[in-house]
C-alpha cells in the first residue's frame, strides 16, 4: 500500500521492489532517499527500527545515480499505527556517501556511526561521524567481505596507535 503511494507521489523513485515471506522491500536511488523518507515519515512510519548494510563485492561498483554499487544500505521502518513494516534499500558504491537521516530520526546517529565503522560508508550531514564499536585507528572495516575473519595479520595492531599502545599517538 505504502509502496503504491510512494510510486504515485514520487514517480521513478522506486527502482525495484520485491516481497518475500511477507516482508516488503523497495530499492531506491540515494538521491531520492530524503524525499522518500520525508514521505513515509508523514505516512506514519515513525519508528526507524534499524539501519544496516550488506556488502556485495562481486557487484560492479558503478558510481552515480541509478548505479548498482558495492553496498546496500538497508533501512527498516515500522508504522506503529498499522504495524506495517517497510524495508528500504539504497545501493551505494565504494567511496560514495549517503545522506544522513539524523535530522529526522535521532536514532539514526549511532546506527550510521556503526555502518561507517563496519563498512566505511560515509553519511553526508552526520554531526559526529566517528567509529562506534572499534577504536579510532582500527585498520579497515570489519564487516566488509574482504576483511579477514581472524583479523588477518596477527600483528594487525602493529603501527596502530591505540590508547593502550604505550600511550603514543601519531
Amino acid at each position: 500500500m505504502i509502496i503504491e503511494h510512494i510510486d504515485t507521489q514520487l514517480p521513478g523513485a522506486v527502482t525495484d521492489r520485491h516481497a518475500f515471506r511477507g516482508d516488503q522491500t523497495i530499492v531506491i536511488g540515494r538521491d531520492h532517499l530524503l524525499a522518500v523518507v520525508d514521505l513515509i515519515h508523514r505516512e506514519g512510519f515513525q519508528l526507524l527500527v534499524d539501519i544496516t548494510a550488506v556488502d556485495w563485492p562481486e557487484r560492479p561498483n558503478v558510481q552515480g545515480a541509478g548505479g548498482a554499487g558495492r553496498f546496500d544500505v538497508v533501512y527498516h521502518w515500522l508504522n506503529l499505527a498499522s504495524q506495517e513494516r517497510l524495508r528500504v534499500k539504497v545501493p551505494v558504491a565504494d567511496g560514495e556517501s549517503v545522506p544522513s537521516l539524523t535530522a529526522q530520526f535521532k536514532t539514526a546517529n549511532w546506527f550510521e556511526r556503526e555502518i561507517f565503522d563496519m563498512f566505511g560508508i560515509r553519511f553526508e550531514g552526520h554531526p559526529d561521524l566517528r567509529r562506534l564499536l572499534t577504536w579510532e585507528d582500527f585498520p579497515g572495516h570489519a564487516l566488509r567481505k574482504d576483511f579477514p575473519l581472524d583479523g588477518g595479520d596477527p600483528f594487525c595492531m602493529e603501527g596502530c596507535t591505540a590508547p593502550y599502545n604505550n600511550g603514543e599517538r601519531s
Partner: protein
Amino acid sequence: MTLDSIALSRQQLDGDKMIINLGPSHPTTHGTLRIVLELEGETITKSTPEIGYLHRGVEKLGESLSYQQFSPLTDRLNYCSSIMNNVGYACAVEKLLGIEIPKRAQQIRVLMSELARIADHIVCVGVNAVDVGAFTAFLYLFKQRETAYDLFELATGQRLHTSFTRIGGLFRDIPEGFVPICERFLVECEAAVDECERLLTHNPIWHDRTKGIGAISPEDAINWGYTGPCLRAAGVPQDLRKAQPYLGYETYDFDIPIGTTGDVFDRYLVRIEEMRQSLRIVRQVLDRLEPGPVNVDDPKVALPSKEKVYTRMESLIHHFKLIMHGIEMPVGEIYSATEAANGELGFYLVSDGGKNPYRIRVRPPCLPIFSSFHDQVKGCLIADAVAVLGAMNIIAGELDR
C-alpha cells in the same frame, strides 16, 4: 575510544568543568561500557558514551558459521535472558525457511521466554534499586531469579548460555519434574514481586530518586528508536507480542502495562507489572501444555532422533547431510523481530542459498535506547545518571555484539 575524550583542553582546565570517567569498570555499568561525564559543579553538562569494549564481531562470525552453529552466539547477546535470544533467532531462521514448528514446541518456547523475561526484569529492577541505595529489594528478588535459573538448568542443562532452541524446534522436551517446580515458582515469585512492591512502590526515598528522572515524551521515545519497557513507560502501547503475534501469543490472555511520563519510576512500574503478566502467561502455558513432538517432522531441517540414526539408513544419511552440508536455504532476505525483555530484538538475515548466512544482522534493543543517554542525563546529577543507566537496562553483550 579516543584520547580526546579524556584529555582536558586548556579551556576546560581554566573553567569550573570537571571530567569524570564512569567505567569501563564501574559497579553501576554492569558490563564494560564507559561514559565520560563533564560536570559543572555537580550538574552534568555533557556525557559521551564510549561503547565497544565487549565487541566480539558476532555478525562477522555468523557469516562463517552455519545457521545452527550461530545459535550459541545468540546466548551471549543479552546474557540475562539468553533463551529469548535463542527463540528470536530460531524464529528468524524459521521465517526464512517458511516453516511452522509444532504446537508443543511453541508452547515451551513461550514458557521459557516468559521465565527469561521475569529473570531479566528481576535483574533490572533489583540492580537499579541497589544502584540507588535500596539493597533489600534486590535480595528478595534475586532468590526468585535463582529459581528461574534452576528451571533453565533443568530444561537445558545450562543456567546462562542455554542454546535451547534448534531450527525447527527445541533441543529437547522439558524434563519430568519441571512442571511442579515451575508451579511452585509461580506462587513464590508472585509473593516476591508483591514484597518488592511493598518495599519500593510507596517508598518516599525511592520516589525522590526516581520520579521525574529520565522523563521522555512518547514522540521523543519513538524518534530515538525506543522499544520495550522504556517505550511503554513513555505511554506508547507497543508490544510485539500483541501487535505482531508470534508463537501463538495471540491465544494467551495478558495485558500491556504502560506508563505516562517515561521516567525511571514509570519504567520500574512497567517492569513490575510485566513480571506479573509474564507469570499469568506461564500459568496459562502450564494449563494447556499438550503432549506431542517438539521438533518439525522434516529431516531436511531437524535432526532425526538418535534411535532412528542408529537403526535406519535414511535417518543416518539425513543426519550426515544436515551436519556436513547444513539446511537447504532459499535465497532471500527477511527481518524477524521478537519482543525481548529490553525491547524489539530483530534479526535481519540475507541468504544466498548457501550453508552459511550471507549476512546476519542483530538489531539490539538497547543500542538505540543507550544512544539517547546524553539527552536523558543532561542537567542531572551523577546519582541520577546512575539511576537512568540502571532503568535503561543496558546489557553490554547485546549493545556491542
